[in-house]
């Protein structure tokens, strides 16, 4: 069987020879035009004069499209229609697109885009969370609150209480391939769009809406992206829509790609948060009640902020059974880039809130943090799910703060295994010895768990389709709604198809995602790609195999169940054929060799207004131990070692899953350490290039890095009992921040909590060191 094999990425030979094509590599027709946006320099202002004359006169410029040239103005929002393609009279952030330059070359377009004469009349700009909160600048009219039990009473009655707050920075996606789109006009006004997007159907929808065409007049194709991480879920809309509008206006193919600076100035990033907490606990560190105030910097438009903030609330418990919890979530409108999806989709921020609480409580009660975490864990899943008819079992059933039963909890076993394999306690003692002997370099170590909910919280998005053809020669052509951005989805899905027919994966051709082949797809997001599309492909293959089995069974007078597909052969009633022979026979017998497949995730129900239900099909789990060292005089730091044990269910492809886990950890640790977004007080992003925004490099990876997969199948019936693996490992990076907190604590006498803020840059580490030392 092809599933479960550690095969490399399907396109690996193309990547190493430079043949793999991204949007910017597609050969374009000679008359292609190139687009660039003219950007606002102010964070919030009225545009009193927008003189595009000098832009029009610039060399190479073919057309300039300003706000007055489009009526109605196309919308680029993925949610509530609040994102006009171009600013209309008022700019809402520094970097806001104001007009489109259409030119003979990319360079000419960019040069001309700088030439507009703009007069602004500044308006008050809300740049920070605090400013937005003070101005009561909310989406949804005000905060959203969900609760279980009575947190205030539990805290009031608790033996001990504490309060704290953590600032959590945002994060630039820094997909190595910037945003790009290419639109080719077709006969009759139809459009073909190539877009670097995680959401082809959304591009199709937005382009057709912009042009006033039905969706069937627009076809979107995506072969691959050079990284997405959520940043290409909605942020590609503007480029595709701009190209479509320009292509219609000029009748020529139009292409747009953002240069790195423009990409960072224009597009949304991970939401920055501030999370305040008020906790009641006992002397052992058992948490009795928590109140969270989650403040999110959403930027100027809604984009996906609402579901992102919901997911932050849905992960405020992480791995801990807390019977009294109140979460108040403020979705704050600011004059900054519109924050968007980013790997984990709010989950990491919510989870960091409770991990911070655990760290703080453990410090306050002076107990080993892992023990305190364990004391608060959900109960371990037994062998069987509880019998729903048994009323006492129902009463005892443990639920999350949003009342979803936790039936698959494995973190007791998983952390015990990791504790042992990483020699956590022995190393903890070693770290203490080191710290006693060294005054300048201080070490820290921490183990943190992850419990991450898998499914889209918008229930209807949990569906997928697939289209499978088998050609006369037995080769298989596979299409599904998921997009490939390096996560290995195509490889996994091809393995599923190959297993379905009992053939080698080399006989399966994976083709570009195409809205003309599989319609109405959901974004490849929420880690759901292989869960949804794998199942849809499996359904299509099952249909085809069923037809073939029935055909052969009839010929050989056996039951279809006795027809076996394996090793490229098909065995039936003592006879054996090659798979391609069977296909040739079936073709001549006029059997249809093409099928669609469809899948809708079962069991999920969710009432987002009440904050109650089962938003997730299942949870994915994992844990990491990070060991770090800091220089208490400079704040410099390194991750010395990381040990991870992660649950991918029965892995579809262990090699690809290990890559996702390592990559996720490194990106998560980057978010919490070196990656800092800085806006100046006029709202201009100062870190808009890799010179100032630092993502982890090869040498930043932990020197010792041990990653292992937890062996255990998914309890739920997912594709071959695997689990989603795109997002959950990202949150393993939280262990790096907690280890840094531990190292900072070692600089003091143990009476002052480090209160380390994120990202823990050298400056913030130094501030925390000062705090604990009382200097």
């Amino acid at each position, binding site marked *: 069987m092809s599933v479960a094999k550690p095969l490399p990425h399907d396109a690996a030979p193309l990547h190493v020879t*430079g043949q*793999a094509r*991204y949007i910017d590599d597609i*050969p374009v027709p000679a008359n292609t035009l190139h687009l660039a946006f003219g950007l606002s320099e102010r964070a919030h202002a009225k545009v009193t004069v927008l003189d595009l004359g000098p832009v029009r006169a610039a060399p190479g410029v073919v057309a300039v499209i300003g706000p007055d040239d489009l009526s109605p103005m196309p919308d680029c929002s993925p949610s509530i229609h609040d994102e006009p393609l171009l600013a209309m009279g008022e700019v809402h952030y520094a970097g806001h697109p104001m007009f489109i330059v259409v030119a003979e070359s990319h360079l000419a377009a960019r040069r001309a885009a700088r030439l507009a004469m703009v007069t602004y009349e500044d308006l008050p700009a809300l740049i920070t969370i605090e400013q937005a909160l003070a101005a009561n600048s909310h989406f949804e009219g005000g905060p959203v609150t969900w609760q279980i039990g009575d947190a205030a009473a539990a805290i009031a009655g608790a033996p001990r209480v504490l309060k704290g707050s953590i600032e959590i920075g945002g994060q630039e996606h820094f997909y190595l391939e*910037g945003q790009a789109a290419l639109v080719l006009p077709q006969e009759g006004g139809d459009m073909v769009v190539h877009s670097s997007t995680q959401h082809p159907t959304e591009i199709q929808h937005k382009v057709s809406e912009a042009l006033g065409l039905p969706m069937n007049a627009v076809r979107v194709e995506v072969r691959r992206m050079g*990284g997405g991480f959520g940043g290409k879920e909605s942020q590609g809309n503007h480029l595709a829509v701009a190209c479509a509008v320009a292509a219609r206006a000029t009748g020529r193919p139009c292409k747009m790609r953002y240069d790195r600076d423009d990409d960072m100035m224009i597009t949304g990033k991970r939401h920055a948060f501030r999370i305040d907490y008020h906790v009641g606990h006992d002397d052992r560190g058992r948490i009795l009640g928590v109140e969270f105030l989650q403040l999110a910097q959403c930027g100027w438009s809604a984009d996906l902020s609402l579901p992102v903030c919901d997911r932050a609330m849905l992960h405020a418990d992480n791995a801990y059974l807390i019977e009294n919890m109140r979460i108040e979530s403020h979705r704050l409108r600011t004059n900054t880039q519109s924050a968007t999806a980013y790997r984990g989709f709010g989950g990491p921020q919510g989870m960091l809130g409770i991990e911070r609480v655990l760290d703080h409580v453990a410090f306050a009660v002076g107990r080993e943090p892992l023990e305190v975490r364990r004391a608060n864990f959900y109960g371990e899943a037994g062998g069987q799910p509880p019998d729903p008819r048994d009323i006492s079992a129902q009463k005892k059933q443990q639920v999350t703060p949003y009342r979803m039963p936790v039936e698959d909890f494995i973190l007791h076993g998983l952390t015990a295994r990791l504790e042992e394999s990483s020699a956590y306690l022995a190393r903890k003692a070693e770290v203490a010895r080191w710290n006693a002997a060294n005054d300048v370099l201080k070490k820290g170590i921490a183990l943190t768990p992850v419990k991450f909910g898998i499914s889209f919280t918008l229930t209807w998005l949990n569906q997928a389709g697939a289209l499978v053809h088998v050609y006369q020669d037995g080769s298989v052509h596979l299409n599904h709604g998921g997009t490939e951005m390096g996560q290995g989805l195509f490889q996994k899905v091809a393995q599923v198809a190959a297993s379905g027919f009992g053939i080698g994966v080399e006989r399966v051709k994976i083709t570009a995602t195409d809205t003309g082949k599989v319609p109405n797809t959901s974004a490849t997001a929420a880690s759901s790609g292989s869960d949804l599309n794998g199942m849809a492909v499996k359904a299509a293959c099952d249909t085809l195999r069923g037809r073939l089995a029935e055909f052969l069974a009839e010929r050989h007078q056996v039951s279809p169940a006795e027809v076996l597909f394996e090793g490229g052969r098909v065995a039936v009633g003592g006879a054996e054929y090659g798979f391609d022979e069977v296909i040739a026979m079936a073709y001549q017998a006029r059997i249809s060799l093409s099928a669609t497949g469809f899948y809708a995730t079962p069991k999920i129900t969710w009432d987002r207004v009440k904050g109650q239900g089962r938003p997730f099909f299942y949870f994915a789990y994992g844990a990491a131990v990070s060991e770090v060292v800091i220089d208490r005089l400079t704040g410099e730091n390194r991750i010395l070692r990381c040990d991870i044990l992660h649950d991918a269910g029965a892995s579809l492809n262990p090699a690809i899953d290990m890559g996702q886990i*390592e990559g996720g950890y490194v990106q998560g640790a980057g978010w919490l350490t070196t990656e800092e977004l800085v806006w100046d007080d006029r709202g201009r992003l100062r870190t808009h290039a*890799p010179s100032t925004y630092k*993502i982890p490099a090869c040498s930043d990876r932990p020197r010792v890095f041990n990653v292992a997969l937890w062996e255990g199948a998914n309890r739920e019936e997912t594709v071959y009992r695997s689990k989603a693996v795109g997002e959950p490992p990202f949150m393993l990076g939280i262990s790096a921040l907690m280890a840094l907190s531990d190292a900072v604590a070692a600089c003091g006498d143990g009476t002052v909590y480090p209160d380390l803020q994120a990202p823990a840059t050298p400056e913030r580490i130094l501030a925390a060191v000062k705090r604990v030392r009382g200097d």
Partner: protein
Amino acid sequence: MSHDLTLTINGTRQQIALDDPRVTLLDLLRERLHLTGTKKGCDRGQCGACTVLIDGRRQNACLALALSHDGAEITTIEGLAEGDTLHPVQAAFVAEDGMQCGYCTPGQVMSAVGLIAEGRAGTDPERIREGMSGNLCRCAAYSGITRAVLAAAEEMTTTKGERKTA
């Protein structure tokens, strides 16, 4: 005014006339010669996606003005394999799956070829990681990348003399 230069690109000598003296080697390769294997990640010398070999040394093509390399020998990712036979570094990147999205991969491969030729990293993983730090990988496929460079370095030192190194 046109500016003439001669470059040997992947073994083929080419006369090139540029209309603009400011064209970078990267734009020359990608936009005029349609060699799109070399990627543009930042266009300002900070990500390594555009790494090529200029006279055998690895360089960021986005920082190199084409005109200033008149007469040079350029090797790009397209010129590394010999026919269907992958260069040992390419083969190692496939074997170790040293990639996710693949966008940084051509740059990583070229940088690794250069690093091995420099002969300073040897087979010490720590020095390889240091030597590869100019090539960012947002997918953080760094484990696979390091393993691939290590494997290729080992293979190329043991088979030295039998095969050219770049």
